[in-house]
């Protein structure tokens, strides 16, 4: 039976490097992908992932299991770091979208178009879309990560989706 995140965290606190490594390997992927999808930059995603786990090493006491899962906690730390980076760089350009996305025949191009469209959303809508629509985070968990009510997550998601639809100029909405 696999140890839970919390059991690994306790082992990590006791100085068990293998517990820390197991926890890192289990949770780094979602953190890295969240940072990547929020910034579109692999270097920032790498830095953020490292900083999130460094924060876990140095401030583990701040994690309260009663307030949510460790996964949510890590997303929350990653979110703060990502928003700081976005504020600093502010280099993500606006994306007007292709003339007709169906003209982009390859799947890869389509994915990259979607990625750029997501990156061009304002951060407040982008994080809702990245968490709920791309990473399958529940509304409840997203609300904890984003530190807002569930209703706010829903409305941001709706607004983000409609902005995306406009940007991508999906044929059905044209």
């Amino acid at each position, binding site marked *: 039976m696999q140890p839970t995140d919390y059991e690994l965290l306790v082992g990590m606190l006791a100085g068990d490097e293998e517990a820390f490594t197991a926890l890192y390997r289990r949770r780094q992927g979602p953190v890295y992908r969240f940072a990547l999808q929020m910034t579109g930059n692999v270097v920032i995603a*790498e830095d953020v992932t*490292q900083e999130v786990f460094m924060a876990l090493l*140095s401030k583990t006491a701040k994690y309260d299991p009663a307030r949510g899962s460790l996964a949510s906690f890590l997303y929350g730390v990653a979110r703060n770091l990502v928003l700081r980076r976005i504020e600093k760089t502010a280099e993500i350009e606006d994306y007007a979208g292709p003339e007709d996305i169906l003209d982009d025949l390859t799947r890869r191009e389509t*994915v990259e178009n*979607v990625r750029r469209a997501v990156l061009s959303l304002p951060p407040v809508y982008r994080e809702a879309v990245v968490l709920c629509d791309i990473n399958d985070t529940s509304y409840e968990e997203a609300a904890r990560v984003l530190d807002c009510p569930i209703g706010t997550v829903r409305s941001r998601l709706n607004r983000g989706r409609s902005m995306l639809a406009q940007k*991508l100029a*999906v044929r059905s909405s044209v």
Partner: protein
Amino acid sequence: MKELLRALAESDREKEAPPEVEVRLRAAFRRKHRRRVWPYFAAAAAVATVLLIRIPKPQTMEIAVVTPSVPVLPVAEKPIAVHQKRRPPREIVTEFYPLMEDPMPFENGELLRVSLPAAAMRSVGVPVSEDRLTEMVQADVLVGQEGLARAIRFVNTSSNRP
């Protein structure tokens, strides 16, 4: 719209942080864990040393200033032989390794010379071969104004090679 976002999710599903991030984090974990153990060990060693060894205080010398009553003689052509004191054995010291995380600003403190098993050097990352772990080595422990060991450096003399 959902299908397009699914496609993006699918394309990123295997993306992960590069392996060097894990290497860096594990190194940080080891450093952190080592630091937790070390202050107590070093502080205990420092206290034990203070109790066992009397650190000789430097002796003061009174120097009488004498005004010459005769004119200064010209400098001799041959250099005058000066008897030099035998120098103490030359010491080579390592850098200081921190023993505290986020210490208070250093105001004043003491540097204490202690003897420790060579195994202690490993705790701060200095390589020591297995067969020398029990050998005693000398070290200087920097104790801060709060009485805690803040850093340590190892000393290599002719009779003591870290």
